[in-house]
């Protein structure tokens, strides 16, 4: 499964970049700077989506006391943080040419920054606890508390009039975006998704090996892993 996802990520990424740079036209107002969209939006989407997945696994782990789901949660966090960082970084670099500033304290930007801190907090908390069982549970509580932030990020552009633009793509109305631009964006989003799955799975295997090295079944698994 991991090789497949990795291959898919690479292929989709190549296709997305091709469409993004060589097929999609220049934007009428932003010129070429809009091409940052092909990483900004996928990364922003993944940053929120991964947090939801993380919280889901954490909640399952807390409720059912299944170790594997807790490990999934821990495995997702670094990738989520990376995605959040990429969204912030690309957004800031995009904001300079379009808005005229790298950063403002508007609702969308602030809440995304908070998301990054939540990821960091989750990882720092787990790293600080020696006992893995306690680390899992404590992290889960934090992850669940932080979930409130995700809808705030998503709806912030609706609730407040922000500097950040509203949604170009939504389920309820037609995208306000040229088809080739949209295609590039979707391809890149799929690529980022595949990337996240691949990296997370590799990481979760590593975590399993680290945690369960003493139990018997892992010993059979180890050489072939």
């Amino acid at each position, binding site marked *: 499964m991991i090789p497949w996802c990795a291959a898919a990520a690479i292929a989709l990424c190549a296709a997305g970049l091709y469409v993004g*740079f*060589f*097929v*999609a*036209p*220049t934007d009428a107002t932003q*010129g*070429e*700077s809009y*091409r*940052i969209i092909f*990483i*900004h939006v996928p*990364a922003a989407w993944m940053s929120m989506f991964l947090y939801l997945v993380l919280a889901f696994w954490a909640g399952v782990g807390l409720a059912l006391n299944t170790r594997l789901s807790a490990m999934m949660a821990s495995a997702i966090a*670094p*990738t989520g943080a*990376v995605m959040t*960082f*990429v969204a912030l*970084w*690309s957004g800031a*670099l*995009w904001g*300079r*040419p379009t808005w005229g500033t790298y950063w403002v304290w508007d609702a969308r930007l602030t809440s995304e920054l908070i998301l990054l801190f939540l990821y960091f907090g989750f990882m720092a908390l787990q790293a600080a606890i020696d006992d893995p069982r306690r680390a899992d549970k404590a992290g889960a509580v934090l992850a669940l508390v932080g979930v409130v932030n995700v809808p705030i990020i998503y709806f912030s552009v609706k609730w407040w009039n922000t500097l950040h633009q509203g949604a170009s793509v939504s389920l309820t109305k037609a995208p306000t975006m040229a088809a080739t631009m949209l295609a590039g964006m979707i391809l890149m989003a799929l690529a980022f998704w595949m*990337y996240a799955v691949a*990296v997370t799975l*590799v*990481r979760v*295997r*590593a*975590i399993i*090996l*680290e945690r369960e*090295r*003493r139990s018997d079944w*892992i*010993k059979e698994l*180890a*050489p072939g*892993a």
Partner: protein
Amino acid sequence: MVWGGWSEFWAMGGYGAFVWGAYGVTVAVLAVEVWLVRRRRRLARDEAARIRRRGA
């Protein structure tokens, strides 16, 4: 084809620094993550194998 040539491509209509700055850092960050995660898996696997050898 939307580009008149490579230099135009790299210039990105004058926004080269921003576009390539964003892409470059993204690629770098993802590459570092991949490297870290693979290293972690390798270390974990070696450790598990060592324990297995010692235990067996």
